[in-house]
């Protein structure tokens, strides 16, 4: 999101993909425990981390996101038994390609958050938002044709 004209404060735009069974529930728990994290983080619910196509992440950067994070069940705990393993490998590949493209490492992250880890979810999002905010705006992949 652009720099706030009045305060000059940079508000990053962060997309979080959360699997329905663990991380989305973890985010709900963070909410019901009233653990705050920046409003810059917007969550998209997917059935499983393996549903996250690397194209979705690229799309986010193309549309001006400053950071993208994917959360899933802990390895071995996937609701669909093996989905997060596929996701983990895909993201490893994607992240090395993003680095090659000049997207700083800190702008992408994978984190395993269980349904019981509301606190971990909030801490993760706070840290991630802080890292992304420090990196500033991400223009590298932004497609100007997508601007309204």
């Amino acid at each position, binding site marked *: 999101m652009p720099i706030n004209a009045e305060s000059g404060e940079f508000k990053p735009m962060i997309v979080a993909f959360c699997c329905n069974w663990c991380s989305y529930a973890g985010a709900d728990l963070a*909410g019901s425990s009233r653990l705050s994290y920046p409003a810059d983080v917007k969550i998209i619910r997917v059935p499983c981390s393996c549903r996250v196509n690397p194209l979705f992440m690229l799309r986010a950067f193309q549309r001006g996101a400053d950071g993208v994070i994917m959360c899933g069940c802990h390895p071995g705990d996937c609701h669909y038994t093996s989905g997060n393993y596929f996701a983990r490998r895909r993201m490893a590949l994607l992240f090395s390609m993003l680095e090659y493209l000049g997207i700083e490492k800190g702008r992408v992250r994978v984190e395993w958050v269980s349904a019981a880890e509301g606190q971990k979810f909030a801490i993760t999002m706070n840290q991630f938002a802080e890292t992304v905010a420090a990196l500033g705006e991400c223009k590298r992949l932004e497609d100007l044709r997508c601007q309204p």
Partner: protein
Amino acid sequence: MQRIGVFVCWCGSNIAATVDVDAVAQAVKTEPGVAFSTNYQYMCSEGGQAIIRNAIAEHKLTGIVVCACSPRMHEATFRKTAATAGLNPYMVEIANIREQCSWIHKDREKATVKAIILSRAAVAKLNLDSPLTAGETPVTKRALVIGGGIAGIQTALDIADAGYEVDIVEKTPTIGGKMAMLDKTFPTLDCSACILTPKMVDAAAHEKITLYTYSEVEKVSGFVGNFTVDIRKRARSVDADRCTGCGDCMEKCPSKKSKSEFNQGLSNRSAIYIPFAQAIPNVPVIDREACIKFQTGKCGVCQKICSAKAVDYEQQDEIMTRRYGAIVAATGFKTINLGRFEEFQYAQSPDVITSLEFERLCNAAGPTKGKVMRLSNHETPKTVVFVQCVGSRSTVECGKTYCSKICCMYTAKHAMLLKEKYPETEVYVFYIDVRTPGKGFDEFYRRAAEEYGVRYVKGMVGKVAEENGRLRVQASDLIADKQLVIEADMVVLAAAIEPDPSARNLATLLTASMDTNDFFTEAHPKLRPVESPTAGVYLSGVCQGPKDIPDTVSQAGAAAAKVIGLLAKDKLVGNPCVAGCNEPLCNGCSACELVCPYGAITYEEKTVMDHGVREQRRVASVNEALCQGCGACTVTCPSGAMDLKGFTNLQIMAEVDAICR
């Protein structure tokens, strides 16, 4: 074009205190497709639902977005509301503006902006939603229980008592499992056989239960409600219908040198045998490896002696195909191989035995008629050392990291039984911790230690060595902080338990998941402990994790209740958010089939229209009853043919676009 209604909930003050709900309702009005928007105090209340129903009718809405609490909370509620107003229930999207917005943000302005963004993402997704219909499949009203131990027997009895047909498949010649081998059970010391054998008889006599002993599951296909299973009924070489169970054949059999599996190899049995006197069915089986007739062709004594003409050397394995609605895994356990624990001399010394072997020695029907004796010289031991946690809670490679759970209690029981039979015996128990968290368990352990004078020593045994016909046990006493050397006559090892080796293959057949120790995993460790993540597959007994008899019986009942709940349904309604193949795009590469954890994708030759040309082609086909909707295939598909209904590529990208605007 959709006509979307947006309903913003206040949730009392839960949302309205930090989010300007009216501003949200106004802001989304300009979003594409939105025909109506409003806000209300409690959308989930009857009043709120009435507002939604009326708006659907009045504004001819094709879909609704409810901006409220987490979809995990009320998505189902609002789907029902939509359905009662004549809308497809899957034309409903929830924007989570409570757990993921109002509850975590204090700044009203920021929270309101975020709520608007989340709501427009939901609108963007709904714009691309299409009505979905959940498929229905009929249920085969018959259950299969794999394993005939106490877990399997109890599950089968409970299901059968509810009026459903059950088949038990047991790989050994008799049902009864490990419990049949036990002498007494803790903490009540009732005789194991006295409580188990009536249950075995009940199972065999039950009109709804069919037993397939000496049989194994060979192939499983299908899905919840409609499994097709191939069962291999191995040749007993004895016609069960003719056999009267007189036992003459066993008596006359000249080959008597085979180790009795039931007695843990402590006694011999004949080549034609029944495992133990109360075996069910009471029909012998010929061990073809040991039988002289099968090995050399010269014998045939049992056939000559059998007055019922039941012995049949020509009998072949039989493959039966049966259909089931539900499958219960109850494959049980075995004790681990102690050969690699060289410090205990288990393989070398006959006087070092496992607890299960000790159990057989104690048992009045066992190889020594209940006389506890040293196997080297048949004398009654004067000093007995019990070692706990042999391979349990262990970090060495040949051990197990978990606690086997039953050893503390059965060791207390063994020590007590031994003291009762031979009060003069000196009994030592070496332990890491004594774990007694069951009903009456701690009292039982204290009785062993305090009333019976069993000497509990905290510490591990480092070495056992044979010396002058006795066993020299070196151990440490951690509390007194000194080394002990005990001259013992017998050492009993509480070997860790591990899942039966057949479970691994079964898990593959059932596409059920296992943990690193080969125990079956539950659908949820706390809330769905008797269900496998694979729909229609249930877990009973130790195959899911170490447990004692009371826990096993409770779990067996719980698994049965789940099975009954499934079989009581005439039709199963599936999850409509499943994968689908866009056939003209599919190139038949099999990538999706390989990543599918449920075996839901197969390939079919189909006629496909490709750019106006009709051609025969191999394309992916999704079995909607098997698909659980994870989406692994959608990302794997190189041509983008696979997509997930309810979470399509376009929908998720529309959400990304709406958020990053």
